[in-house]
Protein backbone atom coordinates (compact mmCIF):
# COMPACT_ATOMS: atom_id res chain seq x y z
CA UNK A 1 0.00 0.00 0.00
CA UNK A 2 1.64 3.17 -1.22
CA UNK A 3 1.98 6.06 1.16
CA UNK A 4 2.03 9.68 0.07
CA UNK A 5 4.15 11.74 2.42
CA UNK A 6 4.48 15.50 2.18
CA UNK A 7 7.56 17.19 3.60
CA UNK A 8 6.50 20.70 4.47
CA UNK A 9 7.20 23.56 6.87
CA UNK A 10 5.69 26.87 5.88
CA UNK A 11 8.96 28.67 6.45
CA UNK A 12 11.75 28.54 3.90
CA UNK A 13 15.29 27.38 4.49
CA UNK A 14 14.54 24.99 7.33
CA UNK A 15 15.63 21.89 5.42
CA UNK A 16 12.62 20.54 3.56
CA UNK A 17 14.52 19.58 0.44
CA UNK A 18 17.51 18.21 2.36
CA UNK A 19 15.17 16.16 4.53
CA UNK A 20 13.15 14.89 1.57
CA UNK A 21 16.34 13.70 -0.14
CA UNK A 22 17.77 12.21 3.05
CA UNK A 23 14.57 10.42 4.03
CA UNK A 24 14.02 9.24 0.47
CA UNK A 25 17.51 7.79 0.23
CA UNK A 26 17.21 6.25 3.70
CA UNK A 27 13.90 4.57 2.87
CA UNK A 28 15.35 3.32 -0.42
CA UNK A 29 18.34 1.84 1.38
CA UNK A 30 15.94 0.14 3.80
CA UNK A 31 14.44 -1.68 0.83
CA UNK A 32 11.45 0.52 0.02
CA UNK A 33 10.67 1.70 -3.48
CA UNK A 34 10.65 5.47 -3.28
CA UNK A 35 9.88 8.39 -5.56
CA UNK A 36 10.57 11.97 -4.52
CA UNK A 37 8.59 14.73 -6.24
CA UNK A 38 9.81 18.31 -6.35
CA UNK A 39 6.78 20.61 -6.02
CA UNK A 40 8.88 23.76 -5.95
CA UNK A 41 8.02 24.71 -9.51
CA UNK A 42 10.17 27.64 -10.62
CA UNK A 43 12.71 27.23 -7.82
CA UNK A 44 13.62 23.59 -8.05
CA UNK A 45 16.45 22.22 -5.92
CA UNK A 46 15.75 18.59 -5.25
CA UNK A 47 17.49 17.57 -8.49
CA UNK A 48 20.68 19.28 -7.29
CA UNK A 49 20.59 17.70 -3.85
CA UNK A 50 20.13 14.30 -5.49
CA UNK A 51 22.80 15.00 -8.09
CA UNK A 52 20.40 14.45 -10.98
CA UNK A 53 20.34 17.98 -12.40
CA UNK A 54 22.08 17.00 -15.61
CA UNK A 55 19.64 14.22 -16.39
CA UNK A 56 16.41 16.22 -16.30
CA UNK A 57 14.52 15.98 -19.59
CA UNK A 58 10.87 16.17 -18.69
CA UNK A 59 9.38 17.44 -15.46
CA UNK A 60 6.27 17.45 -13.29
CA UNK A 61 4.60 20.23 -15.29
CA UNK A 62 5.14 18.34 -18.56
CA UNK A 63 3.44 15.31 -17.03
CA UNK A 64 0.61 17.36 -15.50
CA UNK A 65 -0.03 19.03 -18.86
CA UNK A 66 0.17 15.77 -20.75
CA UNK A 67 3.27 16.71 -22.76
CA UNK A 68 5.21 13.73 -21.39
CA UNK A 69 4.31 10.40 -19.90
CA UNK A 70 5.19 9.73 -16.29
CA UNK A 71 7.88 7.08 -17.03
CA UNK A 72 9.63 9.57 -19.33
CA UNK A 73 9.91 12.14 -16.58
CA UNK A 74 10.99 9.81 -13.76
CA UNK A 75 14.74 9.80 -13.14
CA UNK A 76 16.27 6.78 -11.48
CA UNK A 77 19.06 7.43 -9.02
CA UNK A 78 22.42 6.11 -10.22
CA UNK A 79 23.46 4.89 -6.78
CA UNK A 80 20.18 3.61 -5.36
CA UNK A 81 18.08 1.57 -7.75
CA UNK A 82 15.02 1.95 -5.48
CA UNK A 83 15.08 5.75 -5.59
CA UNK A 84 13.44 7.85 -8.29
CA UNK A 85 12.99 11.57 -8.80
CA UNK A 86 10.21 13.49 -10.48
CA UNK A 87 11.75 16.93 -10.95
CA UNK A 88 10.02 20.29 -11.00
CA UNK A 89 10.12 22.71 -13.87
CA UNK A 90 12.49 25.63 -13.46
CA UNK A 91 11.03 27.74 -16.25
CA UNK A 92 7.38 27.73 -15.18
CA UNK A 93 5.66 28.95 -12.07
CA UNK A 94 3.40 27.29 -9.57
CA UNK A 95 0.23 28.36 -11.35
CA UNK A 96 1.00 25.74 -13.98
CA UNK A 97 0.11 23.07 -11.45
CA UNK A 98 -3.50 21.95 -11.43
CA UNK A 99 -5.37 19.97 -8.83
CA UNK A 100 -6.54 17.33 -11.34
CA UNK A 101 -3.08 17.08 -12.85
CA UNK A 102 -1.44 16.45 -9.49
CA UNK A 103 -4.14 13.96 -8.58
CA UNK A 104 -3.49 12.06 -11.81
CA UNK A 105 0.26 11.93 -11.22
CA UNK A 106 -0.10 10.80 -7.60
CA UNK A 107 -2.70 8.17 -8.49
CA UNK A 108 -0.39 6.72 -11.12
CA UNK A 109 2.63 6.78 -8.81
CA UNK A 110 0.65 5.01 -6.08
CA UNK A 111 0.50 1.89 -8.25
CA UNK A 112 4.27 1.78 -8.73
CA UNK A 113 5.91 2.88 -5.49
CA UNK A 114 5.86 2.19 -1.75
CA UNK A 115 6.57 5.78 -0.83
CA UNK A 116 5.77 9.01 -2.65
CA UNK A 117 7.62 11.87 -0.99
CA UNK A 118 6.39 15.32 -1.95
CA UNK A 119 8.91 18.10 -1.37
CA UNK A 120 6.76 21.13 -0.68
CA UNK A 121 7.79 24.67 -1.56
CA UNK A 122 7.89 27.22 1.25
CA UNK A 123 4.86 29.36 1.87
CA UNK A 124 1.18 28.54 2.02
CA UNK A 125 0.25 29.28 -1.56
CA UNK A 126 -0.77 27.09 -4.46
CA UNK A 127 2.43 25.03 -4.70
CA UNK A 128 2.45 24.17 -1.01
CA UNK A 129 -1.29 23.49 -1.01
CA UNK A 130 -1.04 21.08 -3.94
CA UNK A 131 2.01 19.34 -2.45
CA UNK A 132 -0.02 18.45 0.65
CA UNK A 133 -3.36 18.00 -1.11
CA UNK A 134 -3.22 14.21 -1.55
CA UNK A 135 -0.94 13.36 1.37
CA UNK A 136 -1.59 10.44 3.72
CA UNK A 137 1.18 11.52 6.07
CA UNK A 138 3.12 14.69 6.66
CA UNK A 139 6.55 15.49 7.98
CA UNK A 140 6.68 19.02 9.32
CA UNK A 141 10.26 20.23 9.26
CA UNK A 142 10.92 22.69 12.06
CA UNK A 143 13.97 24.56 13.27
CA UNK A 144 14.23 25.26 16.99
CA UNK A 145 13.27 28.90 16.68
CA UNK A 146 10.01 30.75 17.22
CA UNK A 147 9.40 31.88 13.64
CA UNK A 148 9.79 28.37 12.27
CA UNK A 149 7.61 26.88 14.98
CA UNK A 150 4.81 29.36 14.39
CA UNK A 151 4.88 28.70 10.64
CA UNK A 152 4.80 24.97 11.32
CA UNK A 153 1.77 25.48 13.52
CA UNK A 154 0.07 27.26 10.64
CA UNK A 155 0.91 24.44 8.24
CA UNK A 156 -0.41 21.82 10.68
CA UNK A 157 -3.68 23.72 10.76
CA UNK A 158 -3.81 23.58 6.97
CA UNK A 159 -2.99 19.86 6.90
CA UNK A 160 -6.01 19.41 9.15
CA UNK A 161 -8.32 21.37 6.88
CA UNK A 162 -7.12 21.67 3.29
CA UNK A 163 -6.07 18.13 2.41
CA UNK A 164 -8.32 15.60 0.68
CA UNK A 165 -8.09 13.36 3.73
CA UNK A 166 -9.19 16.16 6.04
CA UNK A 167 -12.08 17.03 3.75
CA UNK A 168 -13.21 13.40 3.90
CA UNK A 169 -13.16 13.63 7.69
CA UNK A 170 -10.02 11.51 8.02
CA UNK A 171 -6.71 12.55 9.49
CA UNK A 172 -3.38 13.15 7.85
CA UNK A 173 -0.82 11.49 10.11
CA UNK A 174 1.59 14.22 11.13
CA UNK A 175 5.16 14.07 12.42
CA UNK A 176 7.48 16.84 13.51
CA UNK A 177 11.08 16.61 12.34
CA UNK A 178 13.36 19.02 14.16
CA UNK A 179 16.36 19.97 12.06
CA UNK A 180 19.46 22.08 12.65
CA UNK A 181 19.38 21.19 16.32
CA UNK A 182 22.44 22.35 18.20
CA UNK A 183 22.60 20.68 21.61
CA UNK A 184 25.23 23.14 22.79
CA UNK A 185 23.09 26.17 22.04
CA UNK A 186 20.02 24.41 23.40
CA UNK A 187 21.83 23.77 26.69
CA UNK A 188 22.71 27.46 26.89
CA UNK A 189 19.06 28.35 26.35
CA UNK A 190 19.73 30.02 23.00
CA UNK A 191 17.23 27.85 21.17
CA UNK A 192 13.74 26.62 21.82
CA UNK A 193 13.90 23.32 23.65
CA UNK A 194 12.47 20.14 22.13
CA UNK A 195 9.81 20.07 24.83
CA UNK A 196 8.75 23.63 24.05
CA UNK A 197 8.45 22.87 20.35
CA UNK A 198 6.41 19.75 20.92
CA UNK A 199 4.23 21.52 23.45
CA UNK A 200 3.46 24.30 20.98
CA UNK A 201 2.88 22.01 18.01
CA UNK A 202 1.08 19.22 19.93
CA UNK A 203 2.28 16.75 17.29
CA UNK A 204 4.44 13.62 17.71
CA UNK A 205 8.15 13.82 17.10
CA UNK A 206 9.70 11.91 14.21
CA UNK A 207 13.31 12.76 14.83
CA UNK A 208 15.92 15.31 15.79
CA UNK A 209 18.54 16.10 13.16
CA UNK A 210 21.63 17.76 14.61
CA UNK A 211 23.16 20.80 12.95
CA UNK A 212 26.12 19.46 11.01
CA UNK A 213 28.60 20.33 8.33
CA UNK A 214 27.98 16.87 6.86
CA UNK A 215 24.58 18.00 5.61
CA UNK A 216 26.05 20.95 3.74
CA UNK A 217 28.88 18.88 2.39
CA UNK A 218 26.49 16.23 1.10
CA UNK A 219 24.24 18.81 -0.59
CA UNK A 220 27.18 20.35 -2.35
CA UNK A 221 28.29 17.09 -3.89
CA UNK A 222 24.74 16.27 -4.94
CA UNK A 223 24.15 13.40 -2.61
CA UNK A 224 21.69 12.95 0.24
CA UNK A 225 23.46 12.85 3.58
CA UNK A 226 22.10 9.37 4.26
CA UNK A 227 23.97 8.17 1.18
CA UNK A 228 27.04 10.36 1.21
CA UNK A 229 28.06 9.69 4.78
CA UNK A 230 25.68 7.16 6.25
CA UNK A 231 27.48 6.95 9.57
CA UNK A 232 27.46 10.69 10.28
CA UNK A 233 25.26 11.97 13.10
CA UNK A 234 22.62 13.59 10.86
CA UNK A 235 22.49 10.51 8.61
CA UNK A 236 21.90 8.23 11.58
CA UNK A 237 19.16 10.54 12.78
CA UNK A 238 17.52 10.45 9.34
CA UNK A 239 17.77 6.65 9.25
CA UNK A 240 16.06 6.45 12.63
CA UNK A 241 13.32 8.79 11.36
CA UNK A 242 12.87 6.66 8.23
CA UNK A 243 12.51 3.52 10.37
CA UNK A 244 9.90 5.28 12.48
CA UNK A 245 8.01 6.18 9.30
CA UNK A 246 8.06 2.48 8.39
CA UNK A 247 6.43 1.72 11.72
CA UNK A 248 9.44 0.58 13.73
CA UNK A 249 9.89 1.69 17.30
CA UNK A 250 13.26 3.38 17.58
CA UNK A 251 14.38 5.03 20.80
CA UNK A 252 14.52 8.77 20.37
CA UNK A 253 17.95 10.21 20.92
CA UNK A 254 19.87 13.20 19.80
CA UNK A 255 22.83 11.92 17.80
CA UNK A 256 26.05 13.73 18.58
CA UNK A 257 28.98 14.22 16.30
CA UNK A 258 31.48 11.64 17.37
CA UNK A 259 34.18 12.99 15.12
CA UNK A 260 33.29 16.52 15.97
CA UNK A 261 33.70 15.86 19.63
CA UNK A 262 37.06 14.16 19.04
CA UNK A 263 38.18 17.02 16.86
CA UNK A 264 37.22 19.51 19.49
CA UNK A 265 39.08 17.60 22.17
CA UNK A 266 42.11 17.22 19.96
CA UNK A 267 41.85 20.82 18.93
CA UNK A 268 41.88 21.89 22.51
CA UNK A 269 44.85 19.75 23.30
CA UNK A 270 46.76 21.16 20.41
CA UNK A 271 46.01 24.70 21.47
Amino acid at each position, binding site marked *: MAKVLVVTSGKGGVGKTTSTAALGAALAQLGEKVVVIDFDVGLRNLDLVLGAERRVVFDLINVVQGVAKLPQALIRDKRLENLWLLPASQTRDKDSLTDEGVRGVITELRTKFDWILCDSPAGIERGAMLAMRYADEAVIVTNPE*VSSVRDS*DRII*GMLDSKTVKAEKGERVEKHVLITRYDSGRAARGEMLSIDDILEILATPLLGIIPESQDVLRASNVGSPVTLNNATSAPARAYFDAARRLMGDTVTMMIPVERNGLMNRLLGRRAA
Partner: protein
Amino acid sequence: MAAIAKPTHQLVRMRGRSYVAFVFCPVVPIAGWLEEIDATLARSPGFFVGKPVVLDLSAVDLSQAAIAHLVTSLEQRNIRILGIEGVDESHLTAGMPPLLTGGRHCVLTHNETKKPEAKPKPMSLLLESPVRSGQSVVFTEGDVTVLGSVGSGAEIVAGGSIHIYGTLRGRAMAGVNGNSAARIYCQKIEAELLAIDGYYQTAEEIDVTLRNRPAQAWLEGETMKITPLN
Protein backbone atom coordinates in the same frame (compact mmCIF):
# COMPACT_ATOMS: atom_id res chain seq x y z
CA MET B 1 -59.96 26.75 13.37
CA ALA B 2 -62.96 26.90 11.21
CA ALA B 3 -65.79 24.67 11.98
CA ILE B 4 -67.17 23.38 8.78
CA ALA B 5 -70.89 22.90 8.91
CA LYS B 6 -72.68 21.28 6.05
CA PRO B 7 -76.32 22.00 5.32
CA THR B 8 -78.38 19.39 7.11
CA HIS B 9 -81.93 19.56 5.75
CA GLN B 10 -81.75 17.30 2.76
CA LEU B 11 -83.90 14.52 1.47
CA VAL B 12 -80.95 12.35 0.89
CA ARG B 13 -79.70 11.23 4.23
CA MET B 14 -76.88 13.38 5.28
CA ARG B 15 -75.16 14.17 8.50
CA GLY B 16 -73.47 17.25 9.74
CA ARG B 17 -70.04 17.02 11.19
CA SER B 18 -67.51 19.63 12.06
CA TYR B 19 -63.77 19.36 11.71
CA VAL B 20 -60.89 21.40 12.84
CA ALA B 21 -58.84 22.83 10.02
CA PHE B 22 -55.77 25.02 9.77
CA VAL B 23 -56.57 28.47 8.54
CA PHE B 24 -53.95 30.30 6.52
CA CYS B 25 -54.28 34.06 6.54
CA PRO B 26 -52.02 35.27 3.75
CA VAL B 27 -50.75 38.83 3.96
CA VAL B 28 -49.23 41.03 1.31
CA PRO B 29 -46.73 40.65 -0.16
CA ILE B 30 -47.84 37.12 -1.00
CA ALA B 31 -44.30 36.20 -2.10
CA GLY B 32 -42.96 37.05 1.34
CA TRP B 33 -45.74 35.11 2.99
CA LEU B 34 -44.97 32.07 0.84
CA GLU B 35 -41.34 32.32 1.92
CA GLU B 36 -42.48 32.02 5.52
CA ILE B 37 -44.46 28.90 4.61
CA ASP B 38 -41.30 27.56 2.94
CA ALA B 39 -39.32 28.27 6.10
CA THR B 40 -41.87 26.34 8.17
CA LEU B 41 -41.69 23.48 5.70
CA ALA B 42 -37.91 23.53 5.81
CA ARG B 43 -37.99 23.11 9.58
CA SER B 44 -40.58 20.33 9.56
CA PRO B 45 -41.28 19.01 6.06
CA GLY B 46 -44.27 16.91 7.11
CA PHE B 47 -45.99 19.70 9.00
CA PHE B 48 -49.04 20.12 6.73
CA VAL B 49 -49.24 16.58 5.42
CA GLY B 50 -52.76 15.20 5.76
CA LYS B 51 -54.04 18.38 7.45
CA PRO B 52 -57.12 20.17 6.14
CA VAL B 53 -56.21 23.73 5.29
CA VAL B 54 -58.56 26.65 4.77
CA LEU B 55 -57.47 29.87 3.14
CA ASP B 56 -58.76 33.04 4.82
CA LEU B 57 -58.38 35.90 2.33
CA SER B 58 -60.12 38.58 4.42
CA ALA B 59 -56.86 40.38 5.11
CA VAL B 60 -55.95 40.73 1.43
CA ASP B 61 -57.70 41.92 -1.66
CA LEU B 62 -56.79 39.52 -4.45
CA SER B 63 -58.01 39.19 -8.00
CA GLN B 64 -59.26 35.89 -9.35
CA ALA B 65 -55.97 35.26 -11.09
CA ALA B 66 -54.04 36.04 -7.92
CA ILE B 67 -56.18 33.61 -5.92
CA ALA B 68 -55.67 30.93 -8.54
CA HIS B 69 -51.95 31.53 -8.43
CA LEU B 70 -51.88 31.33 -4.65
CA VAL B 71 -53.81 28.06 -4.61
CA THR B 72 -51.44 26.62 -7.24
CA SER B 73 -48.39 27.83 -5.30
CA LEU B 74 -49.63 26.05 -2.19
CA GLU B 75 -50.42 22.90 -4.15
CA GLN B 76 -46.86 22.93 -5.44
CA ARG B 77 -45.82 22.77 -1.80
CA ASN B 78 -48.09 19.76 -1.29
CA ILE B 79 -50.59 21.82 0.70
CA ARG B 80 -54.13 21.08 -0.45
CA ILE B 81 -56.76 23.72 0.17
CA LEU B 82 -60.05 22.48 1.54
CA GLY B 83 -61.90 25.74 1.11
CA ILE B 84 -61.59 29.49 0.93
CA GLU B 85 -63.21 32.06 3.15
CA GLY B 86 -63.27 35.81 3.55
CA VAL B 87 -63.68 36.52 -0.15
CA ASP B 88 -66.57 37.37 -2.47
CA GLU B 89 -67.89 34.31 -4.27
CA SER B 90 -67.55 36.06 -7.63
CA HIS B 91 -63.79 35.88 -7.22
CA LEU B 92 -63.80 32.11 -7.24
CA THR B 93 -64.04 29.84 -10.24
CA ALA B 94 -65.46 26.35 -10.35
CA GLY B 95 -61.98 24.84 -10.39
CA MET B 96 -61.09 26.43 -7.07
CA PRO B 97 -61.84 25.10 -3.62
CA PRO B 98 -65.35 26.06 -2.42
CA LEU B 99 -66.23 29.14 -0.44
CA LEU B 100 -66.74 28.52 3.24
CA THR B 101 -68.64 30.61 5.77
CA GLY B 102 -69.57 30.44 9.41
CA GLY B 103 -66.29 29.20 10.73
CA ARG B 104 -65.73 29.45 14.44
CA HIS B 105 -62.51 29.92 16.29
CA CYS B 106 -61.20 27.09 18.34
CA VAL B 107 -58.01 26.27 20.13
CA LEU B 108 -55.65 24.34 17.94
CA THR B 109 -53.97 21.49 19.73
CA HIS B 110 -50.46 21.04 18.48
CA ASN B 111 -50.10 17.38 19.28
CA GLU B 112 -48.13 16.90 16.08
CA THR B 113 -45.42 19.28 17.17
CA LYS B 114 -44.42 17.48 20.31
CA LYS B 115 -40.81 17.40 19.27
CA PRO B 116 -39.25 20.85 19.27
CA GLU B 117 -39.49 22.35 15.81
CA ALA B 118 -35.99 23.68 15.77
CA LYS B 119 -33.33 22.70 18.26
CA PRO B 120 -32.38 25.64 20.38
CA LYS B 121 -29.11 27.01 19.10
CA PRO B 122 -26.13 25.85 21.14
CA MET B 123 -24.87 28.58 23.37
CA SER B 124 -21.32 27.31 23.49
CA LEU B 125 -18.73 26.00 21.10
CA LEU B 126 -16.33 23.23 22.07
CA LEU B 127 -13.10 22.74 20.15
CA GLU B 128 -11.31 19.51 20.94
CA SER B 129 -8.12 20.18 19.01
CA PRO B 130 -5.54 22.94 19.26
CA VAL B 131 -6.29 26.16 17.40
CA ARG B 132 -3.36 26.64 15.03
CA SER B 133 -1.60 29.78 13.90
CA GLY B 134 -3.63 31.59 11.26
CA GLN B 135 -6.91 30.01 12.26
CA SER B 136 -9.73 32.24 13.36
CA VAL B 137 -12.63 30.94 15.40
CA VAL B 138 -15.61 33.29 15.53
CA PHE B 139 -18.60 32.35 17.65
CA THR B 140 -20.73 35.34 18.54
CA GLU B 141 -23.59 33.30 20.01
CA GLY B 142 -21.88 32.37 23.25
CA ASP B 143 -18.90 30.81 24.98
CA VAL B 144 -15.94 29.11 23.34
CA THR B 145 -14.06 26.29 25.07
CA VAL B 146 -10.78 25.01 23.66
CA LEU B 147 -9.34 21.70 24.85
CA GLY B 148 -5.82 22.49 23.73
CA SER B 149 -3.67 25.47 23.03
CA VAL B 150 -4.31 28.53 20.92
CA GLY B 151 -1.23 29.13 18.79
CA SER B 152 0.59 32.36 18.20
CA GLY B 153 -1.16 34.11 15.34
CA ALA B 154 -4.49 32.38 15.96
CA GLU B 155 -7.56 34.16 17.26
CA ILE B 156 -10.73 33.30 19.14
CA VAL B 157 -13.68 35.66 18.98
CA ALA B 158 -16.63 34.88 21.25
CA GLY B 159 -19.87 36.57 22.16
CA GLY B 160 -19.52 35.12 25.64
CA SER B 161 -16.56 33.94 27.67
CA ILE B 162 -13.50 32.07 26.41
CA HIS B 163 -12.08 29.04 28.22
CA ILE B 164 -8.75 27.62 27.13
CA TYR B 165 -7.47 24.40 28.67
CA GLY B 166 -3.99 24.88 27.30
CA THR B 167 -1.69 27.75 26.56
CA LEU B 168 -3.12 30.92 25.08
CA ARG B 169 -0.44 32.28 22.74
CA GLY B 170 -2.69 34.02 20.25
CA ARG B 171 -5.49 36.53 20.60
CA ALA B 172 -8.68 36.10 22.57
CA MET B 173 -11.60 38.48 22.21
CA ALA B 174 -14.56 37.82 24.49
CA GLY B 175 -17.92 39.55 24.83
CA VAL B 176 -17.76 41.01 21.34
CA ASN B 177 -21.50 41.74 21.31
CA GLY B 178 -21.15 44.16 24.17
CA ASN B 179 -21.15 41.56 26.91
CA SER B 180 -18.95 43.21 29.52
CA ALA B 181 -19.50 40.32 31.95
CA ALA B 182 -17.63 37.93 29.66
CA ARG B 183 -14.29 36.62 30.87
CA ILE B 184 -11.26 34.90 29.45
CA TYR B 185 -9.77 31.93 31.27
CA CYS B 186 -6.66 30.04 30.26
CA GLN B 187 -4.36 27.49 31.78
CA LYS B 188 -1.23 29.31 30.69
CA ILE B 189 -1.17 32.89 29.56
CA GLU B 190 1.22 33.95 26.83
CA ALA B 191 -1.42 35.89 24.92
CA GLU B 192 -0.69 38.35 22.16
CA LEU B 193 -3.87 40.24 22.90
CA LEU B 194 -6.82 39.98 25.27
CA ALA B 195 -10.03 41.86 24.68
CA ILE B 196 -13.39 41.98 26.44
CA ASP B 197 -16.23 44.05 25.04
CA GLY B 198 -13.78 46.15 23.06
CA TYR B 199 -11.40 46.91 25.93
CA TYR B 200 -8.09 45.28 25.23
CA GLN B 201 -4.56 44.71 26.46
CA THR B 202 -1.63 43.71 24.30
CA ALA B 203 1.14 41.32 25.29
CA GLU B 204 3.35 44.22 26.38
CA GLU B 205 0.80 45.44 28.90
CA ILE B 206 0.23 42.05 30.49
CA ASP B 207 2.15 41.74 33.73
CA VAL B 208 5.22 39.56 33.18
CA THR B 209 4.72 37.85 36.54
CA LEU B 210 1.49 36.38 35.17
CA ARG B 211 3.18 34.77 32.19
CA ASN B 212 3.01 30.99 31.95
CA ARG B 213 0.48 30.81 34.75
CA PRO B 214 -3.24 30.01 34.86
CA ALA B 215 -5.04 33.32 34.62
CA GLN B 216 -8.33 34.99 34.00
CA ALA B 217 -9.23 38.34 32.56
CA TRP B 218 -12.36 40.33 33.26
CA LEU B 219 -13.66 43.88 33.10
CA GLU B 220 -13.99 46.09 36.13
CA GLY B 221 -15.77 49.11 34.81
CA GLU B 222 -13.58 50.18 31.95
CA THR B 223 -10.40 48.52 33.16
CA MET B 224 -9.32 45.06 32.21
CA LYS B 225 -8.09 43.03 35.15
CA ILE B 226 -5.89 39.99 34.70
CA THR B 227 -5.31 37.88 37.77
CA PRO B 228 -3.84 34.44 38.37
CA LEU B 229 -6.29 31.64 38.92
CA ASN B 230 -5.88 30.13 42.39
